[in-house]
């Protein structure tokens, strides 16, 4: 399948060099070490207001499954790390706090993705960490503090050890 590239030129001279501005316009991802986080900040107090306005309609404010079926999954658990078998949430299943920022900024609100400011995303992230009993209501989330948050579920994650061969894993 792979080509015999022995006779290939060092470059085909197809495509063009990307400019820094082009890269910055698309480079929205956040790594666990915080690389990619923008300037800005917010805490759970401001986050709760935004969440109520822009998120609660789909995700609810409760922690348990309600009788009504909501468009989006529940995001909160009563106590960090608990009830994982019943309900998988940020508090008991997410290994990195940076993922919350990254995902909300790129994909939420579902019906208007990419519309939140960095301060709004920091605030909502802080609120979701607070509502999952991981940080307190005043703690400011920013490029320095967010990657430092220790997530309860982190220790549970292991890399896949399947490797082909007869053993069922």
């Amino acid at each position, binding site marked *: *399948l*792979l*080509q015999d*590239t022995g006779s*290939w030129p060092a*470059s*085909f001279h*197809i*495509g*063009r*060099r*990307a400019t820094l501005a*082009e*890269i910055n316009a*698309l*480079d*929205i*991802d*956040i*790594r*666990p*070490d915080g690389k990619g986080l923008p300037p800005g900040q917010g805490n759970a107090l401001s986050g709760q207001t935004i969440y109520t306005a822009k998120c609660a309609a789909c995700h609810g404010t409760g922690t348990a499954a309600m009788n009504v079926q909501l468009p989006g999954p529940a995001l909160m658990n009563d106590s960090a790390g608990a009830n*994982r*078998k019943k309900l*998988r949430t*940020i508090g008991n*299943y*997410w*290994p*990195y706090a*940076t*993922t919350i920022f*990254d*995902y909300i900024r*790129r*994909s939420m609100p*579902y019906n208007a*993705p*990419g519309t939140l400011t960095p301060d709004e995303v920091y605030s909502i992230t802080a609120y979701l960490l607070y509502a999952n009993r991981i940080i307190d209501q005043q703690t400011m989330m920013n490029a320095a503090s967010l990657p430092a948050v220790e997530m309860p*579920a982190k220790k*549970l*994650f*292991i*890399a*896949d*050890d*399947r490797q*082909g*061969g*007869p*053993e*069922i*894993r």
Partner: protein
Amino acid sequence: LFKSSYGRMIQTAIPESLYTDDPTKVVGPPPGAVGARSPFEHPVKKASDTSSRTPLQDLYGTITPADLHYERHHAGVPVIDPHKYELLIHGMVDKPMVFTLADLKRFPSVSRTCFLECSGNFRSNKETLTPQEICGLTSQSEWTGVMLTTLFREVGVQPRASWFLAEGGDAAVMTRSVPVRKAWDDAMIVYAQNGEAIRPEQGYPARLLLPGWEGNTNVKWLRRLELSDQPFMTREETSRYTYPVKDRIRQFSFEMDARSIITFPAFPQQVEKGWIEIRGIAWSGWGKIAQVEVSTNAGKTWQPARLQEPVLDKAHTAFRYLWQWNGETTEILSRATDETGYTQPTIQQLLNARGADMGGYHLNPVTAWVIQRDGKVLFRPEKWK
């Protein structure tokens, strides 16, 4: 006199009025620009809010018609103008670059036929499930595009780069981290499917193709690749597409394990006593299918099925087994073995390996069909929760 419709019909809409008791007496529509299905055939995907499933029980051979390819999107299908499309490759590379669609098509190209499968591809809650409902989140196409290595060579991927982020241009801006080793192995960026431009639901105008790896990592509507020395830990590889194994959560489960399903006879078919060709498909994300065995006595004994040549790497492989049914109630099953020596497990073997809380991803159990005395075929549900 003019029973003839010669020159007046368009073939994409043959009206019922043309149906006739004797087609040898009526001239039909002339050759056309685009064909259409027979008005008597209506294969359809079964759609939910988030996915739609290939009607495996209605298909033959190994190719999935492009318009019946399974779908799984996280924010619907974007409309992408191919003239505006660009792919950015940056991060740990010597030369960050932008490629237009026309650029991608100019590079040396490769075609390969392989399956895609969503790692959440299993349902088991009742007897009246079709193959489509049990595991219709898998399909197969002939893909054409450029090897990812060809592009990585062009941008100069740095030796310390060990992962890359693949990002889609849909409203979910879908992202997954992929080990760079998969690029050196067989990853592609594909722009064509079954001979024509890739369909919107499958990532038009270009997607990542990681043969054998879980569907979600094959990022559609690909807009950006970023090389890095670590994974990005996106939502899709932490909150989703991970699963409890005993007291831990297993992450970065890429390869789809060997699997098979009998698609005939299957619910809702009803069969007659006598000779029956048992048919199905088998596949493995680890390589070629080495063998498929069929049992017609509820798993007591197993016989090798015939495999349709050519058996391709990481590809749906048609299998067939000739069986004379004596009219007694029984169960028929199939199990695939791949070239690594892995044999498709029972649900019990999976439970033993992963624990009772094993979650819904990467489940590939042997599935059984009950043939009743009246010839009706029912799925045998697996209960483990």
